[in-house]
């Protein structure tokens, strides 16, 4: 030690478990959400860029995408915000049983939505290799779908941890951030659903 040191700050009494933007994970979660959101934004920009290459939309010879089933799927997606919200609330209460229950429910929702996404692909009524129109429709769904699958793995993994594993105090803020990310997943699906299924009827 080359310099004399004097203690001026004592942090012994500070909390060791915090929620929201006070913790590191919250920042990390939103950091990834921003980067992924940018990817989705650029895919949407690609959609409109390629749109200029077609005089009619969908291009001649392609049927309109089916809007009904994806809209039901959209409603289900929106409804899953409720278990996500309840998960956050129970995590903040440090209520392990309730958090476990909502994690299981959210896991089931995630699996259902993965199934719904399969129907969404069928509803496009175009294949990715037929034209640039088909390519971008598939990629918009695929990008968001890959985020959904990864998040489903995280939700299910966390549910298993809460059921089987040693649940540590720091896992409660983690569960809370799962709820935050879920909101991002739902909110980012809204414009994609609109552009892919409703858009071709408008522009």
């Amino acid at each position, binding site marked *: 030690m080359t310099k004399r*040191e004097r*203690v001026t700050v004592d942090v012994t009494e500070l909390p060791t478990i915090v929620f929201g933007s006070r913790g590191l994970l919250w920042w990390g979660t939103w950091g990834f959400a921003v980067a992924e959101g940018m990817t989705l934004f650029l895919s949407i920009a*690609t959609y409109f860029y390629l749109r200029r290459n077609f005089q009619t939309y969908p291009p001649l010879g392609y049927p309109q995408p089916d809007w009904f089933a994806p809209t039901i799927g959209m409603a289900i997606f929106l409804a899953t915000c409720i278990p996500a919200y309840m998960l956050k609330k129970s995590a903040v209460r440090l209520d392990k049983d309730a958090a476990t229950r909502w994690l299981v429910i959210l896991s089931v929702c995630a699996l259902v939505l993965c199934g719904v996404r399969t129907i969404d692909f069928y509803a496009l009524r175009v294949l990715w290799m037929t034209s640039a129109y088909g*390519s971008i429709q598939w990629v918009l769904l695929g990008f968001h779908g890959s985020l959904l699958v990864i998040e489903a793995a995280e939700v299910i993994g966390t549910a298993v941890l809460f059921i089987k*594993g040693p649940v540590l105090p720091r896992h409660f803020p983690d569960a809370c951030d799962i709820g935050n990310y879920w909101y991002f997943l739902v909110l980012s699906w809204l414009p994609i659903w609109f552009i892919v299924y409703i858009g071709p009827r408008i522009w």
Partner: protein
Amino acid sequence: MTAPPLVIGETVPVDVGAEREQMERVWGSKRGLWGWITTTNHKEIGKRYITTAFIFFLLGGIEAAMMRAQLSRPENSLIGPDKYNQIFTMHGTTMMFLFAVPIMEALGLYFVPLMVGTRNVAFPRLNAFGYWLFLIGGSFLYVQFFLNTGPDVGWFAYVPLSGPAFGPGKRADTWAQTITFTEIVAIVGAIELIVTVFKQRAVGMSLNRIPIFVWAMLVTAFMIMFAMPAVATASMYLALDRLVGTHFFNPAEGGDVLLWQHMFWFFGHPEVYIIFLPATGLVSTMLPAFTRRPVFGYPAMVLALISVAFMAFGLWVHHMFATGIPQLAASFFTATSTMIAIPTGVQIFCWLATIWSGRPRFATPMLFIMGFIFLFVIGGVTGVMIASVPFDLQVHDTFFIVAHFHYVLVGGAVFPLFGAFYYWFPKVTGRMLSERIGKWNFWLFFIGMNMTFFPMHWLGFYGMPRRVYTYLASTGWGPLNLLSSIGALVIASSVITFLVNVVVSLRGGAVAGDNPWDADTLEWATTSPPPPYNFLHLPVVQGRSALWDEGDERQVTVGTSTERREVLLTTPLDAQPDSRESHPHDSVWPLAMALAIGVLFITAIFTPLALPIGGALALIAFAGWAWPTSQDVESEKSDEKISLEGA
């Protein structure tokens, strides 16, 4: 016996050996190979990153030397056209994706935690994962190159050349997947840096007190978050066009080749600043130590960094003036391209004012800083020239452009980087680099740089296009090319001089001590090299020049655990103490995850089975990563203090 805890107002005793031993036990990694592959210490990872990126720099340099050898005389037959295409593609891809961006981020990952006074980066396992993925991605590119499957479509891989119609085989796929690897690595590093800077600064280091290098890394990290997704998305479109038959870039089916250029340059131009801004941060942080005064115009410097970052996203189309874009758009992008010279000029004038009003000492890092200012101004001025459409159309795709961007990137980034090597080598290794050899290193580099790249301006004016493997003697380009090639030899001798300096100094360089330059930033407050926990007692910052403003006595923080890995979190703006958070242990799972992702990306080029196989492996790695170990349970069994405020 454990010493009683220190209390506020108390002076830390001189003998803190027992406390140091305890911290070594908690923060140190295991010895041997297992410890080496499982470590999550930011300094160990940072050193590997820097070393690996520097090896890629050497490889890229060898490729440059081969190109210069081929072009040294007309109608040379040393390298054929196919190999030449691969070599210039490898050179650009290596220097941009495997050297320049990674080494700047690596410097950030090593020094930002030290400069902000914390013990590690925010997500240490993610940091380890990023390094391993970088190593796998870079190695993949070179394995493919040595198997004659290296990319041959230029570092920007324009379609349709790189598309399925004109790019058969796996060469362009190799390029596209390498990009995917490096973009994930860059984004992961950016998130770590942002969170570390916002949440882990030392008490008292409010945002208006952080070192300018930290500001530069913060701004760069945000740029990475918005720029890298563009090239990641574009390279994925390219891979899909090539592998599964999508039509993003196929005009016959409604695709668009210019879409590639827009996507690529929306990333590619910010990329220049992603490389350059950290370099300016290095200069601004080194300069006070060699002028004996704080950097002139700190607020102007920070605002310049931020405004450059914003403007950098608004001028990508100046790379596309030759594609026939509408005149109004061309005028707009000319204006924005010229405008970015203003904040850059602010930085240059602030550096000049710092030197002018200080007491400059021309040690080797300072020589590199002076070289940087000289060379970068040349590169900047030619940049303003080619922002003008009529001029750009004359020199587009000629050697003038090669000259311009090498002045910007070598002068603007590699020179500060070499200065930084000399400046921080003592902190990393505990030994000084030789000043005598360092001066040789600098002058050879400076002379070689100008010999190599200045003649290229004329070659461009004389009409020599880029990316040609040879030319006829009747063009008259021979003498200037020969001069340029001799310059490349001088640069190579300079780099060899540097390597000799490193080897000699590691063996017998002067012992550095904690703060050999009497510098003002926090990394110099700890030993050289720093211990695994960085600071025994976390510092309390009282001014912008942390070490110069503290006087004879350093104020410190106590109360973070010595029984487990724990970091102090502070508020984002004012850096007031907010909470203590437990920190992950070392783990092999980041390596496992990188291997799984590596399998996924590499095999995806060859078979769709990559998705289920790679996905399953990644799932296993994810479970191992997240599942609490007995060590985790042990370290959290003590009563946690839970705060719901802000939940």
